[in-house]
């Protein structure tokens, strides 16, 4: 046999091996890249699928009669032996993914929505889960309370604060906690037949760390009641007070503001620190940025004066950087309100700072005035420049936080929220309850006529939580 010579085979094998090795490396790293980029995009996709699930559930609760009735009234699900009402929707093959959303009542008219978005990729599935609570508010009296929380189980917390309520009660739909040297007093109005001055809480009245109740007529709370009230104590839970912010109904605040704007009845003035004043808008409905622009325009130490019967802000409102806001009428904010929670305001490369200031009053001979926020309301340590009076109602669909301003505040109307926290207001908070003002300012009486607000077309969305 002839012995073969040459190196071609060896060289070829070596060369091919190196090409394979190189190819293998590149393939592996590019596969890793692909997996990463797909997992990044599928995570976002899954989150938004879950969010669509929440929105679909809210739509059903608003528009599907069967859902709505069950959500509002059905405490127990007859089919499943004692469990609360629950309903599930599954949607698959939406943009390559799917979601499953479940509404589960925690109480009548109060439920939790859990939505899971799923997107398959490779042989795995990306999941995102969102939980949110929703509740439906109903028209309900404030129980003649100057401080009132209604709706699902939220507390009133008073810490290091002196609170006086004149002509009214205090009502917490859950616990009322008075702590850290706070004194809370409630006084009866001798001119009315009704007896006010009651301290009422559906849950317990907790006096902690030297917190105390000062003057009061009676206590009505879980585990604590005074003689004549005991038969009906603790008080029954109440729904939150619903306000028609933006439905298409002509009585909604948005519709009213739009109608006023159409009839050219809107006047807003800019007052600068040097004293100059000029009309700077004739709108009643503002985008949040339009309002920001006006507040920026008045400058540090300036004042924006709104003389509209109803003003509607499509978005949030934040007062900071030493601005003043004077409202003569009702200011309705479709998002949250923050007054003096921040000292500084940086915009266009400039920083302004200082205490801000809010005053509210009604027009002569009228009752409607106040600040109404669809979500939360916060007053911070830069909220007041001097002892002040708010002649109107402060209402928040979410939480009210008043913290650390160093002047006395008097509210002539009521303070209403889902949850109320009053913290370190050493100069005191005085509330002179005025039911007439509450009814007018919340839109229950318009131009002398009693209007029952239409069922809010949008459920209040409460706590938003993401779980993985």
């Amino acid at each position, binding site marked *: 046999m002839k012995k073969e010579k040459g190196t071609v085979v060896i060289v070829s094998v070596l060369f091919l091996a190196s090409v394979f090795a190189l190819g293998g490396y*590149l393939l592996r790293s590019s596969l890793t890249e692909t997996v990463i980029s797909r997992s990044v995009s599928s995570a976002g996709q899954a989150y938004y699928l879950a969010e669509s699930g929440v929105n679909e559930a809210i739509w059903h609760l608003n528009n599907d009669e069967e859902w709505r009735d069950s959500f509002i009234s059905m405490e127990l699900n007859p089919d499943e032996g004692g469990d609360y009402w629950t309903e599930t929707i599954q949607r698959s093959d939406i943009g390559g993914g799917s979601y499953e959303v479940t509404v589960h009542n925690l109480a009548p008219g109060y439920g939790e929505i859990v939505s899971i978005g799923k997107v398959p990729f490779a042989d795995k599935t990306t999941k995102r889960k969102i939980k*949110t*609570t929703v509740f439906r508010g109903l028209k309900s009296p404030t129980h003649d309370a100057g401080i009132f929380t209604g709706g699902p189980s939220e507390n009133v917390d008073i810490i*290091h604060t002196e609170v006086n309520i004149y002509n009214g009660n205090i009502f917490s739909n859950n616990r009322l906690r008075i702590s850290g040297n706070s004194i809370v007093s409630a006084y009866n109005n001798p001119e009315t037949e009704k007896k006010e001055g009651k301290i009422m809480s559906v849950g317990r009245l907790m006096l902690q760390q030297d917190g105390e109740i000062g003057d009061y007529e009676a206590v009505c709370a879980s585990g604590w009641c005074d003689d004549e009230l005991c038969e009906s104590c603790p008080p029954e839970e109440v729904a939150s007070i619903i306000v028609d912010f933006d439905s298409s109904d002509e009585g909604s605040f948005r519709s009213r503001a739009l109608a006023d704007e159409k009839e050219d009845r809107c006047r807003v003035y800019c007052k600068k620190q040097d004293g100059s004043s000029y009309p700077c808008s004739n709108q009643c409905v503002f985008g949040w940025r339009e309002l920001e622009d006006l507040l920026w325009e008045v400058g540090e130490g300036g004042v924006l004066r709104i003389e509209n019967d109803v003003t509607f802000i499509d978005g949030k409102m934040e007062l900071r950087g030493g601005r003043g806001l004077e409202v003569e009428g009702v200011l309705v904010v479709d998002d949250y309100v923050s007054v003096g929670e921040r000292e500084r305001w940086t915009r266009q490369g400039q920083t302004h700072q200082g205490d801000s200031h809010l005053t509210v009053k009604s027009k002569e001979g009228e009752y409607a005035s106040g600040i109404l926020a669809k979500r*939360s309301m916060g007053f911070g340590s830069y909220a007041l420049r001097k002892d002040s009076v708010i002649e109107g109602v402060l209402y928040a669909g979410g939480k009210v936080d008043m913290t650390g301003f160093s002047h006395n505040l008097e509210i002539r109307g009521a303070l209403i929220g889902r949850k109320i926290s009053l913290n*370190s207001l050493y100069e005191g908070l005085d509330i002179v309850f005025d039911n007439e003002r509450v009814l007018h300012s919340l839109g229950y009486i318009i131009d002398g006529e009693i209007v029952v607000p239409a069922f809010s077309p949008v459920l209040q969305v409460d706590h938003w939580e993401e779980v993985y």
Partner: protein
Amino acid sequence: MRGFTLIEVVTVLFLCTMIALIIFNSITLSNRVYEQKEELTEVLQNGRVILDSMSREIRQSRRIITDLPENMVGGEKAIVFQDGHLSFLSERGTVYEGEGRELLLEEDASDVDGIYEGVYIKIFDPLNPSRGEVGKVTGYDGEERKVFLENSLDKFDSYGGLEYVIDTDYYYISYFLDEEGRIMREVFSYYFSGDENLYVPHNSTPPQGETLEKEILEKPRVVGEHIEKISFWENEEVGVYLEIKKGERGVNLLNTISPRNI
């Protein structure tokens, strides 16, 4: 039979060397490419983890505390916001018994399974209220009122007879860039020096003679590294911009987030 000529040997050696060089070079190149890809992967992974974690928590927050400018340019390097992941819980009571990572709460505590999961519980001595320690709850058995802690509390051998506070109203989360280019996350709350077991908002004014103190609920921990630059701003939404770089590889990421619980 004859042997190889010198020319043949030299030629073969030359060819082999050339091939070896080519192979060596290509392996080095592929290694370099692989390393660069690895770096890029790591950089991207870091960015993804940081943005995911921040976005989720900012989306759930109740208030943005830091004064943020309107634009990305000149944005802040750190952000503090009020945590909103948990529902409002505000409770206090007595610990029935327990030691290490488990404790039993008294009857008044909730009977809902898992309700305290993720909250910080502060255990303190009622006779000496300033002797207290915070732990993170990782599980809760509602029927038994049993709390499972992430770590045992060093200050106490056993928890029986001590008091506990749970107050989720005012947890604050901070994200900041440290000197080593790492993004850190810290959770804290505030109290007045006169009462260490009552959490108050960040902007509270303490009573005369007292001070506002910070209580660390969770020490700063690393969320991601290799950060060159971070910027926070806020107009309609909160914006985050990140520049991440490792070796020669870098990515810039940007996200805007709308807080849901304000």
